[in-house]
């Protein structure tokens, strides 16, 4: 099939960018979206034009590196699917496809479709861990954990840190990402120990990075390729309120 692409091209973080139109010809429905871009890039190089830069790595939906807004939707319109797992059979011959980077002031564009997501790492640095060092851990079965809790913790821990939630949110809020980590760790006895400090620090860092506030629209949940639930945000808000109160009382 033949498609028209409108792709955001931006030389670097300083210059401003614009949409450039490209024809994507003879695209097979079996190609992944990124393979389609590979084909377009091969054509660009042969015609002497620099390839479109985009982030990608595992191409099996788990590393969280790929990050395109496709026709206005982070990772495209197919639910629970990363860009790398989106296939061209979901498009029609003659379609025009608009491709943009994640748009959020906390995720500045580096080049074309590549953005800087190190803000997420800094949020994890502020408390997204259990403070244990290697060695001296008790036996893995020393603390039984109800299966339901372990399963819920896993559901939250499935976050791949791609940033689609931020890109989908009109406020560019990172609440879904942060709450997934807060929930994952608070649901387990190992992580519960530090939950007060953790939730205060992580939310503090999230605000410092310039992410917006949550207004409970739920676009983040709809865009999340790993179906991380809004329940996590509710849980984090409870933990945050509790932590503020605890701090006040002590």
């Amino acid at each position: 099939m033949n498609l028209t692409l409108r792709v955001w091209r931006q030389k670097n973080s300083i210059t401003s960018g614009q949409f450039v139109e490209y024809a994507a010809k003879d695209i097979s429905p079996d190609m992944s979206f990124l393979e389609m871009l590979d084909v377009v890039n091969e054509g660009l190089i042969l015609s002497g034009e620099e390839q479109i830069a985009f982030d990608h790595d595992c191409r099996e939906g788990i590393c969280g590196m790929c990050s395109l807004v496709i026709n206005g939707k982070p990772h495209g319109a197919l639910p629970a699917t990363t860009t790398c797992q989106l296939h061209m059979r979901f498009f029609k011959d003659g379609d025009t496809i608009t491709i943009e980077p994640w748009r959020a002031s906390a995720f500045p564009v580096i080049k074309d479709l590549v953005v800087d997501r190190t803000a997420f790492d800094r949020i994890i640095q502020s408390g997204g861990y259990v403070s244990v060092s290697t060695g001296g851990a008790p036996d893995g079965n020393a603390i039984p954990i109800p299966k339901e809790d372990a399963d819920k913790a896993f559901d939250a821990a499935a976050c791949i840190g791609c940033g689609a939630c931020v890109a989908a949110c009109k406020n560019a809020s990172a609440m879904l990402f942060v709450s997934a980590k807060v929930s994952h760790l608070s649901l387990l006895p190992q992580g519960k120990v530090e939950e007060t400090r953790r939730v205060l620090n992580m939310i503090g860092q999230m605000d410092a990075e310039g992410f917006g506030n949550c207004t409970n629209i739920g676009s983040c949940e709809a865009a999340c390729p790993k179906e991380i639930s809004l329940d996590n945000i509710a849980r984090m808000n409870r933990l945050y309120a509790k932590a503020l109160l605890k701090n006040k009382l002590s």
Partner: protein
Amino acid sequence: MSIKLDSKIPSGSVGSKWTKYRQEMKLVNPANKRKFTVIVVGTGLAGASAAATLGELGYNVKAFCFQDSPRRAHSIAAQGGINAAKNYRNDGDSVYRLFYDTIKGGDFRAREANVHRLAEVSVSIIDQCVAQGVPFAREYGGLLDNRSFGGAQVSRTFYARGQTGQQLLIGAYQALERQIHLGTVEMHPRTEMLDVVMVDGHAKGIITRDLVTGKIEAHAGNAVVLATGGYGNVFYLSTNAKGCNVTATWRAHKKGALFANPCYTQIHPTCIPVSGDHQSKLTLMSESLRNDGRVWVPKQAKDCGKTASSISDSDRDYYLERKYPSYGNLAPRDIASRAAKQVCDEGRGVGPGGRGVYLDFSASINRLGEDKIRERYGNLFDMYERITGENAYQQPMRIYPAIHYTMGGLWVDYELMSNLPGLFVIGEANFSDHGANRLGASALMQGLADGYFVLPQTIGGYFASGKGGAPSTDHDEFKKALSEIQTKTSKLLSIKGKRTVTDFHRELGKLMWDNVGMGRTQASLKQALERIPQIRNEFWENVNVLGGNDELNPALEYAGRVADFLEFAELLTYDALQREESCGGHFREEYQTEDGEALRQDDKYAYVAAWEFKGVDQFPELHKESLVYEEVHMTQRSYK
């Protein structure tokens, strides 16, 4: 230079070596540790766990990865699980049994002492990960669940749904981020290592390129740790991430580090087949599917174009059940893979390009019901449908083998140090623990064993030996290395030829897969050795790399990696040619039993082949480390 391979294996019985080593090793005083800077390249399971643990111990750590965050390395894609000799099932498991299974699974080509240590520390890994909050699967009683995995008769595999690698990596990543917060680790994401710097015979730093600004920089340290993964992408198509490359280990090799057993490459039998020339990578489907699927192709090539349902049962060849009646569809990875290649070579493959075999669930669906199959494999069926557009409940899946893991890597001694003093190599990047074949759920175990428990101990011995000084980056060796890298980068940008980097990589990959892939012969290897230098020469004359050096330039990054694959491929092929036997992932068609099993030649090839670089276009020098089995007797693997 004359090289003497000293594996530094401690004396004593195999079960006492690691204890003895730790009792006798020299220690670095806690106050002195902060005086040592350790450079860690790569932040997968091995690199992230090592960097975090070294930081916790008080060392100064500088960590590097080419991805935008240390959470993304390809360890994250491991599905199945991680082995540990916990014996929580009371089914007769023990450290010794895990040791023995790993040695046997590796087809008796691994070092006993290293493997026993791996089995010993496996139990601590689980404890450590649980303490970090890794959400392993649990039973209703709240205790950890286990599953069984290939090559073992006990249930010792711990798992977190089908995303064990992800959860373990996130655990190590969080430990690393904690150290970054505490200031012991300085993290450099989007930074690629391009050279190791040797000063007075010791590895004392690296040269990197900042992938965002293009700046080429020197970093000095007291030791360098490479945790840069495997080289499966030399085949172009593999289950590896697109970014996986051989550059760090290859450039260390060019500086004198020996490369061991590069011909040991593992093929995974159940991947989704190639759909066309546009294919950029292959996706693995869990091997567990073979528990309920029957593998077949049409008996006659003329039926290959028909739909599966229109081929009657009597016209189908269930070739694994026919050839291996007792193991049937559960034959080991290498045997199932080669059998698939054989029927496709006979023209009986199915799907686009004829490189695929059916994995048919209809019998299981009739017996157990579709709901049961959905419960067991629903996520895999969904993934398959997303990629192929086919519903595997209604028609058989198509599968084909693909390169998945590489057992070879830089040669290391018992302390995980290469033959270059101060250069340590951990995880998939080294050669040490899996011999000629890796068992399922052992890659995660090795990465974390090296990173959490082995390297952070053994590296102290190097520092305590007094050889651990760090020069400044003003040293001439750094300046020389910087200028060499700058020249190479400029060269790549100046060629402005007519072919893309991908085009060269694809050509190399196809050659390697056809000639040095699942089945290798003397003739196919010699043909590859003729062709590889030709492709390489054309690359340096006719590759087209656009853009500049002082910006984010994915084409330039990729060109550098493919340039290294074009050199490395030759070494892999030399190694496959000299090893005139079949063992594990290395199958020479001349050496097989009547049943098509790998036929080892223990009297001639029970050694580690460690290669010394002699120059591009020069034959490398082979050094041999004999494998001495004190504990285990070599036997023929049998899975009949």
